[in-house]
């Protein structure tokens, strides 16, 4: 599954989301829980703002010196007998992984959750060459079984599905006979996947944070599937976005502490697993062979630009969990595996304005996202920057809006024209007005009035009212 998901048209994706009552209910309740848990965990620390400053400073320093830290990481991995491949594009990364799998003559791959492998569509590439790929995170497993339904949240990928739907998917595809109780569904998945872990030739994981000083990397999980994937198969391949790195173990502590609190309100997840190279020669479990694939895929083009801070993201989804737009339209409406505010910033940078020019507008600019971001990415300001670029540099805004905006500029720039226009406004809209409201507006007003009424301008202008008002009082 590549980064793009769902229908091409933004508006049809949004409408689909708006019509899906169950999904909207599920998102509302999930957002509520996650917000409360995050706020509680942040409060408990007492000095959450200090932690955020620290997180921001670490991310800034690391991005500014990214070439140095990646080189250090690669040398340390190689010292411990691991292989490192730097992949400029998605295709490079996929080809390297395919090559390793071919060499091993592997038939079955067990994967733990990884957004970057979704982004580069690694599963498709492996399945094309006849390799079976099993997603082992419970949410990802459900989606994979359901004919590769796309994820709608970066932490809880199957958030849009209810337990009855999941029961039916298990029933239809796997012959499940029990009820829709989450405990029974989960136990069933445990039994199914245990066999897969034991049979897999290769394990593929993502990477929450690599540690440059020792060539290590950490996986932050609750289910234990990433531990299985890095314990049982003889070969392990880890794929990381090139920005997912910290200088030393001391910074790993800070970033993990921020991530688990911001994502799910936990002090730590059940498992934080830090791996360095393949297993030692004297150890008997763990992979004999280890490959690290470091992926650029458009990230270096973001470095050095006004959007560099988007690379500070640690994928906690706190911004998604507070976003009022996400609450209403759901994850699939964004058309990207990266939804919500961070998705609206990141997706156009990775995928281009051509396909994603609407996303920066899918925001009320309320700034709730910026407020909760554990590494202080100014998300809503980045969205405004996108809008500015789209309008100014790319000239991609609609023709009607262009004319209206330049017309507005001329009109507002001249006091005579402004006076005339504001006096005329109530009369110009008369053909569209009914009961002091416009419900079917023309041209650029239409998308607004499709959803809500626009009040008609008052006959008395503010300036006239101001001049003739009684002073004092």
């Amino acid at each position, binding site marked *: 599954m590549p980064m793009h998901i769902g229908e091409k048209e933004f508006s049809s994706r949004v409408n689909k989301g708006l019509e899906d009552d169950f999904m909207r209910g599920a998102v509302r309740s999930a957002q509520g829980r996650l917000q409360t848990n995050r706020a509680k965990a942040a409060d408990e620390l007492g000095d959450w703002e200090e932690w955020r400053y620290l997180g921001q400073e670490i991310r800034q320093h690391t991005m*500014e*010196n990214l070439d140095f830290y990646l080189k250090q990481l690669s040398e340390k991995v*190689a010292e411990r007998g691991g292989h490192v491949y730097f992949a400029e594009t998605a295709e490079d990364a996929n080809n390297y992984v395919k090559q390793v799998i071919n060499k091993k003559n592997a038939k079955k791959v067990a994967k733990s959750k990884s957004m970057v492998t979704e982004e580069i569509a690694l599963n498709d590439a492996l399945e094309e060459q006849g390799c079976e790929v099993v997603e082992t995170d419970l949410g990802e497993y459900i989606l994979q079984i359901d004919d590769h339904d796309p994820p709608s949240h970066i932490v809880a990928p199957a958030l849009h599905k209810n337990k009855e739907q999941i029961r039916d998917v298990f029933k239809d595809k796997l012959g499940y006979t029990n009820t829709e109780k*989450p405990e029974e569904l989960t136990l069933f998945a445990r039994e199914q996947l245990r066999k897969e872990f034991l049979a897999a030739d290769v394990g593929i994981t993502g990477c929450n944070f690599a540690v440059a000083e020792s060539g290590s990397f950490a996986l932050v999980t609750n289910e234990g599937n990433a531990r299985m994937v890095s314990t*049982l198969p003889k070969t392990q391949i880890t794929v990381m976005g090139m920005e997912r790195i910290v200088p*030393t173990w001391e910074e790993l*502590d800070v970033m993990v502490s921020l991530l688990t609190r911001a994502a799910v309100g936990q002090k730590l997840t059940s498992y934080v697993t830090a791996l360095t190279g393949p297993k*030692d020669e004297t150890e008997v479990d763990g992979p004999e062979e280890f490959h690290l694939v470091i992926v650029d895929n458009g990230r270096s083009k973001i*470095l050095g630009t006004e959007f560099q801070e988007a690379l500070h993201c640690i994928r906690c989804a706190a911004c998604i969990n507070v976003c009022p737009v996400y609450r209403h339209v759901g994850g699939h409406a964004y058309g990207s595996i990266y939804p919500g505010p961070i998705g609206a910033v990141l997706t156009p940078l990775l995928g281009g304005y051509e396909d994603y020019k609407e996303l920066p507008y899918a925001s009320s600019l309320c700034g709730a996202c910026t407020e909760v971001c554990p590494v202080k990415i100014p998300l809503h300001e980045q969205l405004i920057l996108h809008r500015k670029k789209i309008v100014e540099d790319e000239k991609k805004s609609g023709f009607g809006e262009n004319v209206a905006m330049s017309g507005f500029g001329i009109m507002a720039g001249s006091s005579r024209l402004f006076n005339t226009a504001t006096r005329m406004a109530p009369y110009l809209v008369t053909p569209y007005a009914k009961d002091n409201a416009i419900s079917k507006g023309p041209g650029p007003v239409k998308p607004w009035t499709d959803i809500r009424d626009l009040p008609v301008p008052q006959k008395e202008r503010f300036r006239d009212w101001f001049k003739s008002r009684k002073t004092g009082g």
Partner: protein
Amino acid sequence: MQKGTIQNSDIFLDNIAKSLGRERKETVIRPTWHHQPQWDVLANYTQNQLVDVLEAQCKSIHTDLIRTCKENLNETLLKVIKNFHGKTVMTSDDSRFEMFGLKDHFNEYKQREDIDVHTWDKTDGDTSIRVAERADVGITFSDITLAESGTVVLFSDEGKGRSVSLLPATYIALIPQSTLVPRMSQATKEIHRQVENRERVSSCVNFISGPSNSADIEMNLVVGVHGPIKATYIVIEDQ
């Protein structure tokens, strides 16, 4: 161990330097961070106070915590194993089982209670994994214990297989009280020190906080997914 390969490094890293508008950097000094709130957490707590914090945290991670002393350790452990309906047990190969006087008792378990206790065998990996996979209980000692998050830290080595705390249906962590520290910061500082002193970092460092769980189905918390379904911590007074 043979050194691994690195491919495409220069072109990739040159590209990053170019985007950043400068030449490649050969050295970088890690700055002193302006804010360091992590060292204030549970600062100056005594070992006993840290056990209290650990105990409170265990309630929110679905983990039972039992305090005991060295003398009662064997009886306490046996009780927990029976509570988990343990018939097959896998332990790591750790000298502390002997130090805390458990090793000798393990032989009696078979006669007294029909409980088989296996020790991780570094000479026979396949058998060890197979036994761990069907074991009812896995038991390890904690190397460092984090009070704040209720976490046991395990450093893998030839005797301490990754599977022991992962594959069995339930998990028991034996926690000498002296292993307690306030939070993750103290553990990662120790590993950072190892790296600075050119000591070998374990191939797998696990930070384990209770049993495995998932909230992927309608955000309902289900305890017990791929890793152990239940966990108990036994804190041993050792000072």
